[in-house]
């Protein structure tokens, strides 16, 4: 039964992915990407990954969609209706996919309890058996995230911090006007050259 639900949700995902490829309207594609994340979150619940499901629903489907909508409000909604050279891309994608599918033939089957990932004594087995006494929280994912793989989470925080700084510095540069630039010529500031380019293009 569970397998059937997962199979149906997977089929939904394929339909949505085809919709994203076909749609020329970027707004529609962004909304479809949000729907895609939400359907994936539903499938994660069926596959017992509840923490991942609510993170995917909140971050993947919520915040990510808002970011895309914000970017679209600064740019344009329409993808230019032009024929692209997609035959080479299609051949490349089909070959890559074929190789990957060939690679899955050795993989443990869906739901297998004997696969190496499930039976490695230092990983999943230890987390499930010992985390209650070693760390404490009943949610094993919390224990692994905060304790066993704590440095991983620290690194994640660092990446998010770096990304925040990057976004601020990329978008912050545009506030400078060319006349301000003459007064304070900050090193490494490219806003002036950029606006000059734009002017040159308009001419």
């Amino acid at each position, binding site marked *: 039964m569970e397998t059937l639900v997962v*199979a149906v949700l*997977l089929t939904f995902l*394929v339909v949505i*992915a085809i919709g*994203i*490829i076909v749609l020329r309207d*970027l707004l529609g594609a*962004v909304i479809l*990407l949000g729907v*895609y*994340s939400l359907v*994936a979150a539903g*499938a994660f619940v069926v*596959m*017992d*990954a509840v923490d*991942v499901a609510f*993170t995917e629903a909140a*971050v*993947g489907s919520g*915040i*990510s969609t808002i*970011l895309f909508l*914000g*970017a*679209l409000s*600064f*740019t344009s909604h329409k*993808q230019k209706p032009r024929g*692209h050279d997609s035959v080479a*891309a299609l051949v490349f994608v089909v070959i*890559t996919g074929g190789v990957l*599918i060939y690679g*899955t033939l050795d*993989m*443990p*089957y*869906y739901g*297998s*309890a004997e*696969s190496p*990932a499930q039976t490695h004594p230092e*990983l*999943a087995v230890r*987390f*499930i058996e010992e*985390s209650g006494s070693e760390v404490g929280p*009943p*949610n*094993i994912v919390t224990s692994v*995230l905060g304790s066993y*793989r704590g440095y*991983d989470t620290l690194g*994640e925080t660092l990446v*998010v911090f770096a990304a*925040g700084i*990057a976004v601020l510095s990329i978008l912050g540069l545009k506030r400078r006007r060319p006349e301000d630039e003459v007064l304070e010529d900050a090193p490494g500031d490219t806003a002036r050259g*950029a606006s000059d380019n*734009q002017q040159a*293009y308009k001419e």
Partner: protein
Amino acid sequence: MTQLIGLYSYWVVIVLMMAGLYIMIARYNLVKKVIGLGLFQTSIFYLYITMGKVEGGTAPILVEGKELVYSNPLPHVLILTAIVVGVATSAVALALIVRIHETYGSIEEDEIKDIEAMEPDA
């Protein structure tokens, strides 16, 4: 037949990944490329979660005094990290696209290349 049922989810995930890759290669619109990247990322999340599932298992939250089968919590942790990092990277990509649009007035890759060709020293 058992192979079909056992590996079906992997195969569909690969189809989804290739859909994202195709968008990234064949579409010239930069926002569409980032959408393709998001599609690819979410498919990889799906692949990991699929590998963590144990038949007849339940969510990895300990219940006192019961012998339950739990699904593997490790892929869940890895993907939690990956979701947040994925959003951070697409935020940087979108910020760059906004700046490109301001500079070139376009987010179509081929148009930007034409502008660059007209202004070699730009």
